[in-house]
């Protein structure tokens, strides 16, 4: 006795076709799903901007009647400007609104409370020191050795971390006072 036995090929063939298409999309997608979502944020800029703001708690500027606290960046850094814009939008120094300015050279405008000289403008340090002597401008730099030649605060890299050196003499010459509480946080304090 014999029997015929039907195997459901058409159904399975359809399913296989579907499966092949599905898997092709699935596996081909490995090239497509390549995760290219880089966080574009410039983390060193965030850290530097945070330092600049925190410095306002440790340094004391001469009294003035201005309603703004001015930070000037000498040099070009989009990342830093972005971070400082966020800072100025959300924070104040005492009751003063923070204003941010980016310049390519030292101008004749009023002395800012903080002048941050970016590394590619380091050659301007001597001029800045002379220009703002005694005017209550905290000069911040970011190049090795500049704390010794006039900047009050110099960012340095220590084991991939951004830290700072402090030159108390430069602070005094700038007409500023600094809290001794900041000294343990500096990698080097120059008298």
């Amino acid at each position, binding site marked *: 006795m014999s029997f015929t036995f039907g195997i459901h090929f058409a159904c399975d063939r359809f399913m*296989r076709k579907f499966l092949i298409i599905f898997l092709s999309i699935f596996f081909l997608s490995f090239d497509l799903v390549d995760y290219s979502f880089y966080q574009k944020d410039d983390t060193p800029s965030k850290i530097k901007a945070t330092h600049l703001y925190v410095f306002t708690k440790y340094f004391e500027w001469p009294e003035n009647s201005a309603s703004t606290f001015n930070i000037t960046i000498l040099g070009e850094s989009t990342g830093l400007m972005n971070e400082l814009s966020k800072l100025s939008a959300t924070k104040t120094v005492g009751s003063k609104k923070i204003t941010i300015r980016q310049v390519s050279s030292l101008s004749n405008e009023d002395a800012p409370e903080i002048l941050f000289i970016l590394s590619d403008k380091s050659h301007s340090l001597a001029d800045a020191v002379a220009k703002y002597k005694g005017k209550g401008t905290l000069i911040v730099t970011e190049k090795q050795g500049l704390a010794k030649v006039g900047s009050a605060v110099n960012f340095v890299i220590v084991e991939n971390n951004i830290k700072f050196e402090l030159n108390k003499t430069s602070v005094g010459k700038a007409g500023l006072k600094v809290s001794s509480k900041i000294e343990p*946080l500096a990698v080097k304090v120059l008298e």
Partner: protein
Amino acid sequence: MRKYIIHITVLLLSLSAYTSFAQMELVEKALNFYNNGQLDSAKANIDKGLNDPETVSDYQPWLIKGYVYKELYKKKELNDPSSQYREIAIQALKKALELDKAKEQESNTIQNLKFLGSKYNNDAIKFMDSTNYELSEALFDKYISIYSAYDPSFSADTNRMQYYITLGLRFQDYFEATNSENMRKLAESYYLRALKINPNTKITNKNFALLYYNEGVNIINSTDFDIDLEKLYVVQQQAVDMFKKAEPYMLKAYSVDPKDIDVIEGLRNIYQSLNDMEKVDFYNKKYNELKK
């Protein structure tokens, strides 16, 4: 009534060898029910028919059982990842294959096993999410087990690696969306498993690096401008640790494909975050050269 016999490959069941007429009758009935689309009756008869010691040693009743249960799965439990019909169909087909010494139906049986195996893969893909990933993995293991056994061209390692990368990407997405440490750890664990299979895959290394890199960025971004300097230094070190973790994986991706602009951008970003400007300049040059 649904016409079950759509494309016919004829299987001649020679049941005359059975000494027990009753058992033969049950198998025959099961086959007829099956061909008429009466699957529940087919199931009842084939289950009974396979109670006989003589029947169980023949591959054909097992094959019928496999087909009956496969159809029941398709009809009733296609969307059930824990389908018992599918499990039983697979066991029956495996048994049929084992007993089919003359390999009369080997090809068809394997084809059906692969069909059911592929369903495990479909389900595994369907359940690749933050709550069902363990179920997904269990289903994927079943898929791998069937295909490894019955498809000589199948590469379990390649498939596993792709599966782990996909899960890694999925959890990386969840991590980016929720900032959940658990999601990051799961992404990490799946990337590590993919790398264990092949440590030289660009996409795994690149995405693994990116997972750490983005974590470092998130750590910095989540700090407030008001933070104490002491705390800032702790946070900064935590981020640096993440960037350092990212570095070797991105370098490996670069060694695999030095022309991948995303990888070069990744290295540039990592070194920028590590404040290593010499290396930033190096990869920036490479980046600009490729952009030309």
